[in-house]
């Protein structure tokens, strides 16, 4: 069996990121789109950790730490926005919210 190399992790990360992008494009539900964005962030995190482990440099892992903090902040604000939109329109379908007016 071949040894696990860096490119395997990069390939996995690319696949996960592509699935996330596809999800954001396909989904109509705001919360599902939000979760696909989280998936994309995680794919990037995997790249960071793989390179950090490859080059034996801790910087990549610190980047991941900060990306996770940004993701947490994004979750709080994003879900707040989703709640506010739902309160106004009684719907989470992004097609119902295609205009900012009202």
């Amino acid at each position, binding site marked *: 069996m071949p040894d696990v190399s860096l490119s395997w992790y990069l390939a996995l990360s690319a696949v996960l990121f592509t699935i996330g992008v596809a999800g954001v494009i396909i989904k109509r539900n705001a919360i599902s789109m939000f979760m696909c964005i989280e998936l994309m962030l995680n794919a990037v995190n995997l790249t960071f950790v793989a390179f950090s482990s490859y080059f034996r440099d801790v910087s990549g892992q610190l980047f991941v730490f900060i990306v996770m903090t940004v993701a947490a902040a994004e979750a709080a604000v994003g879900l707040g926005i989703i*709640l506010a939109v739902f309160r106004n329109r009684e719907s989470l379908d992004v097609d119902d919210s295609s205009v900012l007016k009202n």
Partner: protein
Amino acid sequence: MTTFLFVLLAGLAIGSAIAMVVQRNPLYSAISLIGVFIALAGLYLTLAAPFLAAIQIIVYAGAIMVLVVFVIMLLNVEEEEHKPLRMGYLTVIAILLAAILFGEAGFILYFMGNSPLEPLNPNAVGNASNVGLTASIGTGLFTTYLLPFEITSVLLLMAIVGAMTLARRVGLLRPTDLVVPGSQVLTRQTLDPKAIGDATEVESSTTAEAARVLGLEGVPHRREE
């Protein structure tokens, strides 16, 4: 053994990710996403990053997904109904472009695999690496990357304030209003738009009754913001 673990965890991650996108019920999507997070935490362990693996489980699978599931259940989200695709005529072009993308990715990865860079092997360097342990992450976070760390705390503060501002329900009562538990107490300024600043309290069970007690019947109610 490492290869076996990688294939297992990568399969779990990709399978859960596809399940997440395919599911129509957002709750099932969320649970599939937790599967992705757990698989990624395992991959971080194979990459010798135990601290990040723990943080991944605690912050992502714990905090963020609990928040998402809470909102899904709070809003009582129904399943997405089947709708016709918006731009169905683009399907052929999309498949073509996806094939080109996969071809490019495979091409690049094939030549990366033959690159002269050292292989990913924990014993390649020979010394015991402490990259990924909590101590080295803490040292990096509080020395070289101190400024980003502090900016992160400001970002979190902004997120707290933003989330509270967005989720706050703007109601009838204002901070100057007096409220007694168990009964509805309205102030004169709540009922009469012309009596701003008049905090005389009126005890009643309904707004209409309070208006009658104050002799304000017929006065148009202030619009609920």
